[in-house]
């Protein structure tokens, strides 16, 4: 009943760092929630696809959003500051949130990502997402000729 008896979980990142979190916060991640409900919780829970830097950020978000004393607008203010990160980090966070099935975080990140993409050209998108162009030379030429504005 008292908060000191609150259940805790240990999450282990891909680079073997361990993080202690409250179960009540962690179950915002449906992947973890399912493990808890199915009583498949090992100690610690290994998260092979999330490194320590990203996991720390996910936990920061997770704990903020689990705080019942915060109002929605305070949480929104936190979100606005939270997403002021380099795009690389945002991308890693999106992938982690997807893996953990953490919907609130996904929503915030996808919206941010979408907004940032609004003014990018094709080249900028490739650069930011670190994507290899797989169009042939002819295809690329044709695309540039048809939609020059998309490549500026």
């Amino acid at each position, binding site marked *: 009943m008292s908060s000191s008896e609150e259940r805790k979980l240990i999450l282990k990142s891909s680079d073997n760092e361990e993080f202690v979190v409250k179960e009540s916060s962690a179950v915002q991640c449906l992947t973890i929630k399912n493990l808890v409900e199915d009583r498949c919780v090992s100690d610690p829970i290994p998260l092979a*696809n999330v490194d320590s830097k990203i996991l720390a950020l996910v936990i920061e978000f997770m704990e903020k959003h689990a705080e019942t004393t915060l109002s929605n607008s305070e949480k929104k203010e936190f979100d606005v500051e939270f997403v002021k990160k380099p795009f690389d980090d945002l991308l890693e966070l999106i992938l982690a949130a997807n893996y953990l099935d953490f919907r609130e975080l996904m929503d915030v990140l996808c919206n941010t*990502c979408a907004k940032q993409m*609004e003014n990018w050209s094709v080249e900028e998108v*490739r650069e930011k*997402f670190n994507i*290899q162009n797989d169009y042939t030379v002819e295809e690329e030429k044709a695309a540039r000729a*048809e939609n020059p504005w*998309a490549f500026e």
Partner: protein
Amino acid sequence: MRETNTLGLCSENMLIFGGGAGGGGRPRISESNDIPVELLLRIISLVHDPTVVVASGVRHGWRDAISWGITHLSLSWCKKNMNNLVLSLVPNFTILQVLILRQDTPELQDNAVETIASYCHDLQELDLSKSFRLTDQSLYALAHGCLDLMNLNISGCSAFSDMALAYLSGFCRKLKILNLCGCVKAATDIALKAIGFNFNQLQSLNLGWCDHFGDDGVKSLAYGCPDLRALDLCGCLLITDESVIALANNCLHLKSLDLYYCQSITDRAMYSLAQSQLKNKHETWNSPKNMDEGLTNLNISQCTALTPPAVQALCDSFPALHTCPGRHSLIISGCLNLMSVHCACAVQAHRAAVVLPHLAH
């Protein structure tokens, strides 16, 4: 079908989630791994349409994913070169259901619409408004390719003929919403007869500013489209009471009627609408749930032959027609003699207030 690209990356790679398993270094989005499809589509569903176009040019995998995922697309933001954009994009977006190509200056040509008709067989909604460079060829193409069309907006496409529209009506029979505003050559009695014959599910029809059809056409419409909810006859100068009477007797679900500038309309039309509503009420007497409020919007501006008793009778029969400022839905601009007509709530408000000079609208 798209050929595989020179680097040998195919769309299967899209489904592999990247990242190293355990140990050393952060998982980077590397060449052979990419953002999962469902994640990409989730982000794409949040961006504006120009960004969708940019994203589909990034790599084959992205283009394929987007073409599987995008069902709604608007290209109205493309001020120049819309025709070329349609020609290059549409072959990739074969599952499109909604395509908005509304223009400010007419860009589209027949070859664009022919392309749409060849690739987008699931299309349900198409907006081609103001494409007055399109010819009948476009309508023929749509008739053959887009049989599932439910909502078609060709307002301002002044080059279309009535024969082509009639032809289309024989094929796209699921149409529920049709906008022919300004399609003067297309909206004739012949075309309306074809529409009445074929578009039996039609709910909304805009014939605004088409003055080449008359009562014959509207009657065919009324007989053939009993489900009509909204009809815009704004500026349709040849319409007389006969049209309104036919609508009153046959289109029992009519909610919105625009008769702006139909100066041949007289009190007869108003009484026929009122009487059919009374008849409706009697017939649904035993099942109050089915009671239809009838008309909610009526525009009789500039119908200067109308007199107050007739319009008041109308207002009394349709409780959803309002003259009160908040819910103004009976529009009588330019009919100075109808100033005394009021809906029930306007009367109550007038009585309840301290006596003030009545502010006529």
